[in-house]
């Protein structure tokens, strides 16, 4: 197959495909920019020795936030940045992987025309690598934009990064290469042609045949080192940064893939046991393809972790500050201001965006993967409103559980690992904690409602009896 042919066949032709490709590129670009930011932040830590706390606060001439200057907190910040990178990457991966009908049919028709598996693979890979490299190229501008957001706009004392120098753009080509690899992997895993001459010969999912045992085992295998590392981090404050680092990286890998699937399967069982027809339907669609939902749920857990970590302590400190007005030096206020402005706003906002986007993508993916089930249900007389409720239920139950547990874990691990906050939680603290737990969960519920109505046209498309037709 000539290159020109491969390029011709890999071009996304429908508008939906093009939007999807661009969104994935933007996600990858942002992720790339974040990686470069993280590298920059790392270089900031410890280079400038922490100035003693004085009336002017721990300002340095650079105007960097003390969070970035102090070494162990610096690593924590970098860790959180990488966490966010992981989240955005997961979004990008989901977008790359999102099987639109056109893409699936395209692969099948190519295969029918005589394309060998290598050829369909090549075409799919070219398609995603093209998108990914575009994302990599966008990483540079994204890095500059992030610098503006984190370094230029924030006032002195709150800045997260220094002005970019040319040398800092050095990682850019590596980022492009990395995104290309991510794209290639995504393409390779999503090019299966679907050929079925009977409605029952459906597509085999990655987890076909594997059930509780396999998933639990995989979860233990991946989560145990992560848990051990985190525990070590809590016990040994000296080496906190490194341990947390490693633990967090493992979390990024483990949670989406395995824990999420487990959570989905658990919630499916609970739904089935509930008894309401809607819940049973939700369970049926959930157990069909647990993979993508599981991934989304894992992402939400990490989100919860990040949100919990950041908002809990910030919230507690804020509450203490407001309530007790301690006769402390302004350094605390400055510290707190830096904290709220940089982390609270950034992370919560970004977290909210990521949550919403993840949920949206999950729903879209669900509508695509389960379209045959939905079409059969529609043919049996289930109306759109009920189906929407089913979809929402499917998404909210595992998501809220993931968010809540992730937030709890975030709060717990941060409080335990930060030696400074070692006062016992008072009523105010618990009140703040409760708010921190409830608000994200509520947020998810509201987002799910909004999404459900926004995705109504897609639901109608999934209900079309054309979906029951096989090749």
């Amino acid at each position, binding site marked *: 197959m000539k290159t020109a042919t491969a390029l011709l066949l890999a071009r996304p032709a429908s508008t939906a495909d093009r939007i999807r490709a661009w969104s994935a590129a933007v996600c990858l670009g942002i992720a790339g920019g974040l990686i470069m930011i993280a590298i920059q932040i790392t270089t900031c830590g410890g280079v400038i020795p922490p100035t003693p706390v004085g009336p002017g606060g721990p300002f340095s001439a650079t105007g960097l936030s003390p969070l970035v200057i102090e070494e162990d907190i610096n690593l924590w910040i970098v860790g959180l940045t990488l966490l966010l990178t992981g989240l955005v990457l997961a979004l990008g991966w989901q977008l790359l992987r999102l099987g639109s009908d056109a893409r699936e049919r395209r692969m099948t028709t190519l295969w*029918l*025309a005589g394309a060998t598996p290598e050829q369909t693979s090549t075409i799919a890979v070219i398609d995603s690598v093209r998108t990914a490299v575009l994302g990599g190229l966008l990483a540079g501008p994204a890095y500059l934009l992030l610098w503006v957001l984190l370094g230029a706009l924030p006032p002195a004392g709150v800045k997260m990064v220094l002005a970019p120098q040319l040398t800092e753009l050095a990682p850019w080509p590596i980022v492009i290469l990395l995104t290309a690899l991510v794209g290639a992997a995504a393409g390779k895993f999503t090019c299966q042609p679907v050929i079925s001459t*009977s409605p029952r010969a459906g597509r085999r999912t990655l987890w076909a045949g594997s059930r509780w045992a396999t998933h639990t085992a995989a979860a233990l295998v991946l989560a145990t080192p992560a848990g051990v590392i985190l525990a070590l981090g809590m016990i040994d404050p000296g080496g906190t940064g490194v341990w947390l680092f490693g633990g967090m990286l493992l979390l990024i890998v483990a949670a989406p893939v395995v824990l999420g699937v487990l959570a989905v399967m658990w919630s499916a069982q609970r739904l089935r046991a509930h008894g309401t027809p809607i819940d049973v339907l939700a369970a049926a669609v959930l157990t069909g393809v647990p993979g993508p939902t599981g991934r989304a749920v894992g992402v939400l857990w990490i989100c919860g972790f990040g949100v919990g970590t950041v908002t809990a302590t910030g919230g507690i400190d804020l509450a203490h500050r407001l309530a007790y007005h301690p006769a402390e030096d302004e350094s605390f206020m400055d510290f707190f201001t830096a904290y709220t402005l940089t982390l609270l706003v950034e992370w919560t906002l970004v977290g909210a965006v990521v949550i919403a986007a993840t949920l949206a993508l999950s729903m879209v993916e669900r509508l695509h993967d389960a379209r045959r089930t939905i079409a059969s249900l529609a043919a049996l007389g289930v109306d759109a409103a009920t189906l929407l409720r089913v979809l929402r239920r499917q998404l909210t139950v595992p998501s809220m559980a993931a968010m809540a547990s992730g937030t709890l874990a975030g709060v717990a691990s941060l409080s335990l690992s930060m030696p400074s906050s070692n006062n016992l939680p008072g009523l105010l603290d618990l009140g703040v904690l409760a708010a921190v737990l409830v608000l994200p969960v509520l947020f998810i519920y509201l987002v799910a409602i909004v999404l459900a109505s926004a995705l109504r046209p897609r639901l109608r498309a999934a209900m079309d009896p054309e979906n029951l037709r096989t090749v």
Partner: protein
Amino acid sequence: MSDAVLTMAGVEYAYRRTAALRGVSMTARAGEIVAVTGPSGSGKSTLLHIASGVLRPQAGTVRLLDHDLLSIGEADRCRLRRREVGIVLQFGQLVPDLPLIDNVALPLLLDGNDMAGARTAAAGWLERVQLDGMAAVIPAELSGGQAQRAAVARALITGPAVVFADEPTGSTDLLGGELLLDLLIGAVRERNAALVLVTHDNTIATRADREVRLRDGLVDHEVRLT
């Protein structure tokens, strides 16, 4: 006596627990038109998919143009399907958002031919199936009959020695179906290729040289029509 281009012996295939074919044997010779008929559920489409290499049987042998379909690799089967075998299905065959000319030229493109040459050949075939002037149209804008004619053009563009057609007139009207069959049979006769035609329509079956009638996954009988 021309050589057999297709030999199937004792072919079995089951979907999960339902047996679609329970031991079917059949041959087709060069230049011969064979109609495979039978009530719905008798296994006709499955037979065609196995004969053309799209599905693998669970038992039995399939020899297509001197290749043992079960022992060659997936890549070779695909190449075979591209060069020497043409397939026309009832629907869902054209690449959805590729213009018609590229759709018809697809087998040539996949084989490594250059774009210009492939498109020229495709244009010639589009004219032959009375779709000239629709080179830039995408399949979604075509009627059933037009899409089928394009599928026939694509099946024939590489000059195959065997053509498989599964209810090719399924999405066409009566007169459109006649035109389609005339084109298909004409092209096949021209190059002394074999044509295996699955149909439930007797008026189409009578255009074949031989009828193989299936029932319940087995060959019930054969009727020689010439």
